[in-house]
């Protein structure tokens, strides 16, 4: 989230799309309804009428996988009717930048497409620059090569009629939503968008979110209170664990793991990964401080801070890559903790089969999960499974301490309430034990390959680690005396500082001070910044890009909801006058005056300081609609059916469905009453009694066609497998009328599995191993199925 949960109350319009916030983030809805009480309009766009839609002022249905068309048409609507916030767009975005005249787009492809290699040559995806390399601009936005004019032309094809024919949204409903949200284009108005997996689990998920970002930039909604784009993350610390680098190519603080090809040496890494301008110029300080934190003494300057210890990536290992490799027998050992891929992994038939090919598997969880029990799952003969499995009992969050980072980037400390039962232990304990045991096993080895593990700094106590000590390392310290650094601004690239995760730096600014433990809330009637509650990364900033909440002269666009403004009289520590003041920590150099060079560039993480309407991703610098890899219809916008760069896996169990055999769109989602794979919640009687069985929601029309009655058992089938569910025949799903065609969609929650108190088939038996072109997240929100009465 660019902003945070409470800030939603400051919005004038809330578009919930790709999320069912009332269902999956019920407490967040407190703030959605608070905004509504204050007069905000609540818009719900979803294939199905959800608990969120029930509270919305306007609801518009759309076929799964067509969100870019819907949002693109909103962009078109805003541009055509001059509803965008012109000054913001001109000053704060790259709208006025001139693109290479050779850049263009035709029939689904941007310039540079190589049909042989199936990749883009990005040579033309760039600005025209002057001799200094500064992009050329036309602030009138009239030049046909401006980003703005490209945007206009690109989205001109995204008309309300197209929305009706592709998304199945009645034109009138689309226009109502589009109009209501476009009203936030006025400078004093703010609109926010809440999304979740409904936007990410597509083969063009990243582009979809970019479409949203473009719209928000056009409407001047980024950086302001009540604005922003809110990724509603699904698990209590999925934000923090991502921040900490638990993704294959990531190191803590979003420092990329070096690759063998691009970064053979530290010098290569720093040169290639550090831009010339923007905040990332500091990357060497962050990276070197990380190496110091990890490898201590061994990370000496003369040895390139032990850069060679860091594993260099070769092949990709995103979730699906990992399981494909496992299925191919390339992965021998697997450690799974608090996750349950046998249920949550797409094409779970393949992923379960992959587990059989492991030599050993370690699972740590609260209950016996499907992943731990894969060897006795449906259709599996234990005798034939040679995998050794260790299942270790885990403690719950109330039986251990530590900090969680919520979706709004707030670090909050949680105190331990009780001791865990029996041999249940925390993940910290597991890591600590394992590190000590491995260090002991490798002790004395002089082999080069064993030096990284032997050099790894590790001193957190014997059993349960001292987590505040860990947090102190994460925060960073000066290597000379071990004193905490006050923030990442003082980190250095010469080895004088160590820091485990630069973005968290400042959480322990002084010894004995842990800002994650701060518990001073703002009064309810305030703007809701709550700077005294927890610690928000970076540097306790609550609204990212908040320089953009003020106009180019430094005055707030909306005085009533002012976040930041330039005070020319305020005194700086050095006695000079003029600084940014307000209720939040400036996301800007605090003394950089609006009229100074760069004083009007709010997006400091970007080299040019401008919001990127034009921003290259794998499949192009502007979002374009393609049909899902499995779709019942032809792409009406171009002859390119699916995202040309979608990742499609080709193992024998990776089958794709033919629309003739599987004419119905299938989608998966979650329920309030269960969490993810249900490994916890399907064991809790109070939750099971509310949601006992797997069900499949479908329209009355489809049910009629198939002779299915509400409550009947049905079989939902895809090219990958089939599941048995109970039919929920409802008016909340309606068939989509696409021109003269009718397309049906069904939905099925993915919480069930074969273990636990409430058992059922897993919806992911149906979903495919196909992934987003940028993130490789699976396309489980739009795939093809058929339904029949069981």
């Amino acid at each position, binding site marked *: 989230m660019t902003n945070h949960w409470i800030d939603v109350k400051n919005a004038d319009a809330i578009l919930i799309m790709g999320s069912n916030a009332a269902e999956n983030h019920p407490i967040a809805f407190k703030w959605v309804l608070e905004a509504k009480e204050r007069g905000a309009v609540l818009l719900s766009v979803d294939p199905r009428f959800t608990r969120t839609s029930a509270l919305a002022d306007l609801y518009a249905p759309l076929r799964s996988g067509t969100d870019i068309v819907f949002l693109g048409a909103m962009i078109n609507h805003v541009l055509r009717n001059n509803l965008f916030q012109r000054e913001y767009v001109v000053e704060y975005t790259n709208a006025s930048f001139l693109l290479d005249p050779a850049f263009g787009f035709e029939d689904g492809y941007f310039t540079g497409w190589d049909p042989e290699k199936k990749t883009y040559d990005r040579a033309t995806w760039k600005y025209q620059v002057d001799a200094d390399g500064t992009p050329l601009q036309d602030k009138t936005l009239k030049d046909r090569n401006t980003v703005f004019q490209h945007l206009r032309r690109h989205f001109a094809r995204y008309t309300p009629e197209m929305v009706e024919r592709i998304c199945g949204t009645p034109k009138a409903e689309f226009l109502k939503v589009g109009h209501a949200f476009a009203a936030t284009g006025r400078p004093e108005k703010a609109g926010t968008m809440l999304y979740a997996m409904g936007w990410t689990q597509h083969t063009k998920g990243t582009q979809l979110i970019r479409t949203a970002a473009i719209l928000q930039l056009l409407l001047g909604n980024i950086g302001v209170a009540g604005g922003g784009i809110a990724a509603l993350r699904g698990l*209590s610390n999925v934000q923090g664990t991502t921040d900490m680098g638990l993704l294959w190519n990531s190191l803590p603080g979003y420092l990329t793991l070096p690759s063998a090809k691009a970064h053979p040496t530290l010098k290569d890494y720093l040169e290639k990964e550090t831009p010339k301008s923007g905040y990332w110029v500091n990357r060497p300080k962050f990276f070197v401080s990380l190496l110091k934190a990890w490898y201590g003494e061994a990370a000496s300057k003369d040895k390139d801070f032990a850069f060679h210890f860091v594993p260099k990536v070769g092949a990709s290992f995103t979730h699906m890559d990992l399981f494909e490799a496992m299925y191919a027998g390339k*992965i021998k050992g*697997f450690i799974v903790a608090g996750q349950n891929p046998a249920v949550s992994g797409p094409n779970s038939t393949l992923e379960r089969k992959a587990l059989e090919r492991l030599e050993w598997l370690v699972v740590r969880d609260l209950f016996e999960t499907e992943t731990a029990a894969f060897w006795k799952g449906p259709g599996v003969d234990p005798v034939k499974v040679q995998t050794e499995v260790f299942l270790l009992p885990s403690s719950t969050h109330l039986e251990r301490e530590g900090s969680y980072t919520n979706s709004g980037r707030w670090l909050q400390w949680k105190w331990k309430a009780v001791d865990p039962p029996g041999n249940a232990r925390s993940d910290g304990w597991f890591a600590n034990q394992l590190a000590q045991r491995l260090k002991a096993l490798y002790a004395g080895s002089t082999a080069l390959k064993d030096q990284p593990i032997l050099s790894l700094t590790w001193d957190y106590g014997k059993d349960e680690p001292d987590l505040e000590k860990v947090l102190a390392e994460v925060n960073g310290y000066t290597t000379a005396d071990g004193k905490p650094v006050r923030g990442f601004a003082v980190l250095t690239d010469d080895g004088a500082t160590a820091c485990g995760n630069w973005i968290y730096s400042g959480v322990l600014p002084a010894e004995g001070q842990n800002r994650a433990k701060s518990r001073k809330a703002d009064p309810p009637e305030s703007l809701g910044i709550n700077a005294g509650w927890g610690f928000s990364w970076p540097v306790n900033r609550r609204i990212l890009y908040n320089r953009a909440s003020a106009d180019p002269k430094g005055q707030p666009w909306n005085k009533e909801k002012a976040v930041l403004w330039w005070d020319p009289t305020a005194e700086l520590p050095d006695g000079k006058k003029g600084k940014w003041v307000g209720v939040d920590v400036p996301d800007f150099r605090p003394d950089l005056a609006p009229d100074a060079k760069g004083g009007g560039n709010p997006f400091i993480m970007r080299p040019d300081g401008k919001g990127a309407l034009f921003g290259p991703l794998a499949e192009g610098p502007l979002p374009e609609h393609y049909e899902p890899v499995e779709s019942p219809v032809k792409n009406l916008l171009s002859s390119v059916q699916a995202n040309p760069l979608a990742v499609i896996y080709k193992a024998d169990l990776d089958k794709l469905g033919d629309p003739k055999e599987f004419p119905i769109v299938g989608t998966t989602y979650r329920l309030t009453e269960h969490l993810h794979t249900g490994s916890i919640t399907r064991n809790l009687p109070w*939750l099971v009694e509310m949601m006992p069985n797997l069900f499949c929601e479908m329209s009355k029309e489809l049910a009629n066609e198939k002779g299915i009655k509400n409550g009947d058992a049905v079989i939902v089938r895809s090219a990958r497998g089939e599941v048995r569910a109970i039919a929920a025949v409802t008016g909340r799903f309606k068939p989509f009328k696409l021109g003269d065609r009718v397309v049906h969609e069904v939905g099925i929650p993915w919480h069930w599995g074969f273990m636990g108190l409430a058992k059922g088939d897993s919806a992911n038996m149906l979903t495919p191993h196909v992934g987003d072109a940028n993130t490789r997240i699976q396309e489980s929100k739009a795939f093809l199925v058929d339904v029949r009465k069981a």
Partner: protein
Amino acid sequence: MSLTRRDFLKGAGTGAALGGAVGVELGSAEAYVTELKTKGAKEVPSICYYCAVGCGIKASVADGKVVAIQGDPEHPINRGTLCSKAQAYIQVLQHPNRLTKALYRAPGAAEWQEKPLDWAMEQIAQRIKATRDATFVEKEGDVPVNRTEAIATLGSAIIANEEAYLLAKLGRGLGIVPMEHQARI
């Protein structure tokens, strides 16, 4: 003998008057009093386990047991409120099927065996070492790559930052590249 509670009479209203609701109570029936079950319990603040809203919860602990889990009224996001999942969380702590012992399943076996935790940890460490040693790639050409792609880790997104940091540090320290978690799917 005393008249029934005045409030009964008051409450009974018109309809009861028609029915002649004049009652006499023979026994003494004071309104029973139940003590607040959290009375005297220690309130431990924490953060909800489930989604990423980050609601504050407080666990009421008495005699080393959690007797109630409620919303933290001081928390600015949820202000004491909680959804159904969080309200049911106490059942995890009281659950008869919670894992409390290390279990081991030998190749081809049809059942789990209970094992001492220490044994399991040592075995795991040895498996990691064996697989790492057998699959470690020190160099690709001239470039030191120091990695193994034959050991993978997955999870978790519901552990503390500090724990995640330790796992990341240890994993990379061992040279493991395939480390993923819930954020990808």
